[in-house]
């Protein structure tokens, strides 16, 4: 189809959809309205189970089954990326060369790394109390490791990041979530039922029953998943080269970062 025809199709389809959606928006309850029946029930249920962060209660207790799907999607995407970004028969691995990094950058990176890592773990641990949780904290912790790539070089990153171990961690964390769910079925009332542990004192680290456990499992899963995902793309950019390409093309990883994006 030539671009002109396509543009006509887009214009027709888009105009129809736009008209429909605008008409629908005019019939929506006004922005900022007070009617949120499900939301009100969720707040009530969250407080009953001593979970200060209502969003965490929805994610890891009331709708924990959704979160199971969500973390599995991430798990599947990681597995998919490992398969899709594998080294194929016509490719080989080049060893990344050490890179020179300006001293202030290196110093700053080494300073920031532990702080960022700790922040990530803090956000995971306080998921049921304050905004944040496993998903957010996991991403922070995983990206913290990659500061090494900026502060030192790719080889330093590879040393702290054995991808196989992180893949196993990813799978174990997913299993932990599932096992907690099955424990709810066996020891409690239903799959993922939050009735096994005491709900604790409101607004403390141990409150919320199984919410902190599921939160931690998700935090670990996300951290491992992000590390493996980034490793797949970074490998493509830095290490994996076509057969016959010069090894020194992969010499300095920093220059090839754009190729992987």
């Amino acid at each position, binding site marked *: 189809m030539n671009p002109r025809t396509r543009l006509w199709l*887009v214009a027709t389809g*888009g105009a129809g959809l736009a008209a429909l*959606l605008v008409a629908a928006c005019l019939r929506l309850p006004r922005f*900022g309205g007070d009617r949120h029946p499900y939301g009100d029930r*969720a707040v009530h249920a969250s407080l009953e189970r001593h979970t200060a*962060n209502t969003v965490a209660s929805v994610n890891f207790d009331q709708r924990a089954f959704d979160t199971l799907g969500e973390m599995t999607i991430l798990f599947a995407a990681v597995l998919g*990326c490992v398969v899709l970004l594998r080294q194929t028969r016509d490719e080989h691995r080049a060893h990344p060369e050490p890179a020179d990094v300006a001293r202030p950058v290196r110093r700053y990176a080494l300073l920031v790394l532990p702080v960022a890592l700790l922040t990530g773990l803090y956000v995971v641990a306080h998921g049921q109390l*304050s905004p944040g949780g496993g998903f957010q904290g996991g991403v922070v912790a995983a990206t913290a490791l990659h500061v090494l790539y900026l502060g030192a070089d790719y080889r330093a990153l590879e040393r702290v990041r054995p991808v196989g171990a992180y893949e196993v961690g990813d799978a174990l964390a997913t299993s932990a979530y599932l096992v907690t769910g099955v424990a709810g079925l066996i020891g409690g009332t239903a799959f993922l039922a939050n009735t096994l542990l005491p709900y604790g004192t409101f607004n403390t680290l141990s409150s919320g029953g199984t919410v902190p456990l599921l939160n931690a499992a998700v935090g670990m899963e996300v951290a491992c998943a992000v590390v493996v995902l980034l490793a797949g793309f970074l490998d493509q950019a830095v290490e994996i080269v076509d057969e016959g390409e010069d090894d020194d093309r992969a010499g300095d990883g920093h220059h090839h970062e754009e190729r992987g994006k």
Partner: protein
Amino acid sequence: MTAVPHVLPYLVAVWVFLAGAYGLATSRNLIHAVGCLSVCQAATYVLLLAVGYRDGATAPVFSDVEPGTRPVVDPVVQALALTDVVVGATVTALLLALVVQVAKRHGTVDPDELTELRG
């Protein structure tokens, strides 16, 4: 038109969705197309969060707010938006992985030049 502020956030979501779809349909670069898909998804965040808003409300977190003293926004849409974010990030990662391979196998990321499958 006093009604405009009451629907404006919804209309923003519609606009973002259509803009993303337009970009996707007319894209000349697959990486750009993946970006456009993320734009479409951003529309769902905007819509979800707009739907859950409540006038004068704060975040639904009670570690520093006494329950019952202030209205809070709908926590359910926030949880849905979080799920949505994760889904979006993973789909983007997979799509980019496929684009990497398309670039290698076809030597191009221009959809106009991919002519292997047709008819």
